[in-house]
């Protein structure tokens, strides 16, 4: 767009030399952008490449990206885990279960709440919505100690219940995102359905929910990535039992500063741990970008 415009102007002026310098300046701009983009993802590429280096050569050859010989043993040794009885198959399964169950709950109940906020007519709705926004700003740290005790009394410590159950009561960010999206769905559709005899529930199931699918996908993806990366939660609630470790905790014990670390295996498993987020990023980038752009909130 911009390039053709400037070229058009230069063409009118009739100076071929100007066109060429414009092109060169565009080229330089692209080169600069690309250079900085490369610096941005350099650490990630470095980690990926180090996963294929023989463990003892990683740091001596740290300045070089491409391994001299491609070594796949890191993945095999890393997969065996932290010297315990459990392999990364267990940790990946735990992470996957945790992220999926929490995300399904969060998206489903957030969609109910968002529908109520978007279409409901009752007193106090505005206050409720304001409260939702307030919880978005409320530091989780305030609640950390009493919530822990609360779950302790319920006998939930040492399980994923303290992390999954609250998700089924909705999440402020998702409520905000889905409510905004539902507000953009024309109410004429509801009216038409109402005339055809649809109830409040019928309109939700048949009209609003199907139309809100993009917002639900965006919420689900963000929720999944956040839960997949969640470290503090599992650290509090499942730290005691290795069989319950998610990938995040397993990696942390892998890189325990107190013990000597097999860096090759460490980077191999770290790389694998990023696969779900990268896959989501590659295949659903549009949804993530839309989610961030439309809510204006950090993703």
């Amino acid at each position, binding site marked *: *767009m*911009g*390039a053709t415009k400037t070229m058009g102007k230069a063409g009118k002026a009739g100076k071929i030399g100007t066109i060429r310098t414009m092109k060169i300046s565009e080229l330089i701009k692209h080169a600069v*952008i*690309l250079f900085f*983009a490369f610096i*941005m993802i350099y*650490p*990630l590429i470095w980690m990926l490449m180090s996963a294929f280096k023989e463990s003892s050569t990683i740091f001596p050859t*740290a*300045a070089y990206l491409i391994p001299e010989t491609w070594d796949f043993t890191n993945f095999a040794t890393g997969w065996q885990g932290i010297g315990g009885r459990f392999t990364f198959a267990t940790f990946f399964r735990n992470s996957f279960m945790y992220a999926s169950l929490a995300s399904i709950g969060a998206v489903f*109940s957030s969609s109910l*709440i968002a529908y*109520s906020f978007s279409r*409901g*007519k009752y007193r106090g*709705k505005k206050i*409720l919505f304001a*409260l939702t926004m307030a*919880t978005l*700003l409320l*530091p989780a*740290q*305030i*609640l*950390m*100690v*009493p*919530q822990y*005790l*609360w779950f302790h009394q319920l006998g939930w410590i040492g399980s994923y219940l303290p992390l999954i159950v*609250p998700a*089924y*009561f*909705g999440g402020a960010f998702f409520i905000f995102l889905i409510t905004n999206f539902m507000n953009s769905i024309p109410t004429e559709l509801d009216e038409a359905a109402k005339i055809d005899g649809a*109830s*409040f*529930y019928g309109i939700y199931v048949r009209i609003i929910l199907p139309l809100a699918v993009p917002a639900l996908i965006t919420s689900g993806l963000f929720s999944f*990535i*956040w839960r*997949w*990366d969640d*470290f503090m939660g599992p650290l509090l609630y499942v730290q005691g039992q290795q069989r319950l470790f998610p*990938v*995040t*905790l397993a990696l942390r014990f892998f*890189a325990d*500063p107190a013990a000597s670390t097999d860096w090759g295996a460490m980077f191999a498993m*770290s790389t694998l*741990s*990023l696969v779900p987020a*990268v896959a989501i*990023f590659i295949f659903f*980038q549009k949804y993530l970008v839309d989610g*961030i*752009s439309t809510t*204006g*909130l*950090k*993703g």
Partner: protein
Amino acid sequence: MLALYFHRKGDVFLEKAILSEKTAVSFSDKFRKFIMNETTGAVLFAMPFLLGFLLFTIVPMGMSLYYSFTDFNILRAPTFVGLDNYVRMLTDERLFSSMRATFYFAFTSVPLRLLVALLVALMLLKSTKMTGVYRAMYYLPSILGASVAVAVLWRQMFFVTGTVNRLLDVIGLNRDFAWLGDTRTAIWTLILLAAWQFGSAMLIFLSSLKQIPETYYEAARIDGAGKLRIFFKITLPLLTPTIFFNLVMQMINGFLAFTQAFLVTQGGPADTTNFFSLYMFNHAFAWGNAGYAAALAWMMLIMLGTFTGILFLTKRFWVYEGGFS
């Protein structure tokens, strides 16, 4: 039918029975009507939030407030100590250094991140065939940055034998500097890690920039305004609402930084990265001072509230709220 038959007989007693039968029918009718009512439905659908808010926010907040006036830990019952925990803060040297580190981190990393985000967004605004690729490359660290994998990677990058020193070797600056062991540089490894994740802010800026009508720029160009002038007189003022919103959200997140400090620097060296959340976490779960931790949490909430309030008060001096009309 039966009712009608008795009715014909004119029995007063049965008349009553019929009436009560009628009300029974109308009760289930009423219930159905009540449930199918739009308002009932809307309130029912809002219930998960209300219940969750009560169970997982209000109740814990109340408990937290109570604990902040007690001495207790996870294993021992709380004993009331009045304001002791709050008084203790006044002489807690480690708390002071923790506050210093937290403020230093938030006040450097957030502006840095927003500044880089804005610059890159401006660079990527003109869309070309490559824009999608660039945007993806700049955004990727934001998606992965919160992971343990990246934290561990970051940690080793700044080891004495890590990647950064090896790369410095290549350009002839081999000093084998201990980035994580030096009180001046350790916090900057975390600031860099935070600034590195500017992708989300960049996307928000991009979408705000695209909303500025082209006619504004045309009018300014006709009036003979240069590029810089256009940026400072039109683009920047119109972006201030976005900047403000981002500033508030990210400052709060900055004050609460935990995972990366926990994993990359463990609060060291000499408490220079002992961020508030980390300090509080240790008091609650490592050192058995949950009462003191609760008091710290409330102090943090009050501080954050005050800070956000002040930000909102400054709003009218620099945030443009005229819209695009």
